[in-house]
């Protein structure tokens, strides 16, 4: 039934359209039917297909616009929290410094990604940086392990770095992110992996359109002590006075643990913020693309329709004038 309708439409339009290829309808599911009707080489095009396509593109555009709105409102909520959480790690960096180039035996790379997709390239960026770090730090007698946060990095790392995965944590963003949640995650990571240095890879939120892939390094208390004795950046640590009855190593251990949970908290928030920003711009560009496509389709559709009307008019008029004459 539908096929018959297609053919009827098609026959009407065929002589006009066939010389011009119309890209928008090339993927039409109609099989060529030139065995029983029309000469070979005539392409049957129905406006119905274009109409359906236009409808679906319009629907997709509506969906992407809605997703953009959602991402924008989520971004606003999370952006202020991410910016406030920066104050948490800054004192630690002032005290212990950030040592991305430190050379240790056991490094653990904590890759932070999102659970959901459709947010541009932020997840592949953090996976790429993690792999680069892995390569950079590999060598004889060296151990590199991954701790993966989020479904997306998991999917990418399971493919080729299966052997090095130590821990996978997902579904972190079911509830709004809070410090207690992230600190429990950090606690679990500390209990489950052995490390000399933890390298946290995340996308630092810069603006809605730019996210800087960032590495934060956290050293284990032993390494901090070793480095402090060797001098260098951490050499100043000895000039601090320690109050109370604890020894320096105890303090350093507490400090390293707390530093890890704070840096993790900030990293998770920054990454969530970047995710929403990236999703916003991705959805923005996809609604724009859908709009462009819709314009092209509308143009094709109208032109075809106009052409068929013109033919019909010509047919009628020429028929009438033939009768008169």
């Amino acid at each position, binding site marked *: 039934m539908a096929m018959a309708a297609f053919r009827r439409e098609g026959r009407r339009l065929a002589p006009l359209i066939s010389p011009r290829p119309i890209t928008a309808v090339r993927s039409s599911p109609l099989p060529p039917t030139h065995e029983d009707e029309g000469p070979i080489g005539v392409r049957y095009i129905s406006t119905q297909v274009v109409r359906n396509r236009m409808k679906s593109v319009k629907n997709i555009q509506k969906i992407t616009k809605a997703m953009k709105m959602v991402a924008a409102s989520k971004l606003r909520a999370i952006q202020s929290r991410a910016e406030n959480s920066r104050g948490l790690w800054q004192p630690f960096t002032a005290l212990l410094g950030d040592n991305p180039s430190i050379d240790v035996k056991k490094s653990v790379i904590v890759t932070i990604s999102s659970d959901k997709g459709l947010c541009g390239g932020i997840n592949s960026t953090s996976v790429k940086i993690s792999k680069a770090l892995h390569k950079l730090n590999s060598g004889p007698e060296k151990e590199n392990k991954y701790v993966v946060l989020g479904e997306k990095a998991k999917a990418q790392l399971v493919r080729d770095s*299966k*052997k090095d*995965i*130590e*821990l*996978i*944590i*997902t*579904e*972190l963003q*079911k*509830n*709004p992110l*809070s410090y*207690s*949640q992230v*600190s*429990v*995650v*950090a*606690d*679990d990571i*500390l*209990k*489950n992996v052995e490390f000399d240095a933890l390298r946290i890879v995340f996308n630092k939120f810069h603006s809605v359109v730019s996210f800087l892939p960032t590495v934060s390094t956290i050293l284990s208390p032993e390494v901090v002590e070793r480095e402090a004795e060797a001098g260098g950046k951490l050499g100043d640590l000895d000039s601090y006075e320690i109050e*109370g*009855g*604890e020894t320096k190593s*105890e303090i350093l*251990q*507490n400090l390293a*643990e*707390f530093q*890890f*949970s704070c840096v993790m908290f900030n990293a998770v928030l920054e990454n969530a913020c970047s995710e929403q920003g990236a999703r916003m711009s991705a959805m923005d560009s996809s609604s724009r693309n859908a709009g462009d496509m819709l314009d092209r389709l509308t143009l094709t559709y109208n032109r075809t329709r106009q052409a068929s009307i013109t033919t019909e008019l010509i047919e009628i008029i020429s028929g009438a004038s033939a009768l008169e004459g």
Partner: protein
Amino acid sequence: MASNAAVPFWRAAGMTYITYSNICANLVRNCLKEPYKTEALSREKVHFAISKWTDGKPEKPSKSFFLPL
């Protein structure tokens, strides 16, 4: 200063500083008065799934956490 003497005890119990500080924070949260108390406690929900991997395979089925700390 009670915390000075406490450190070796919670360390011996297998706690990290993070767990210790979380317990302390929860204690403080519980000291709030009523309308704020439930609000503060409901904010601090913990939920995630964790799975340990060894040699390219998940060691045990992942477990979810629901800790109303």
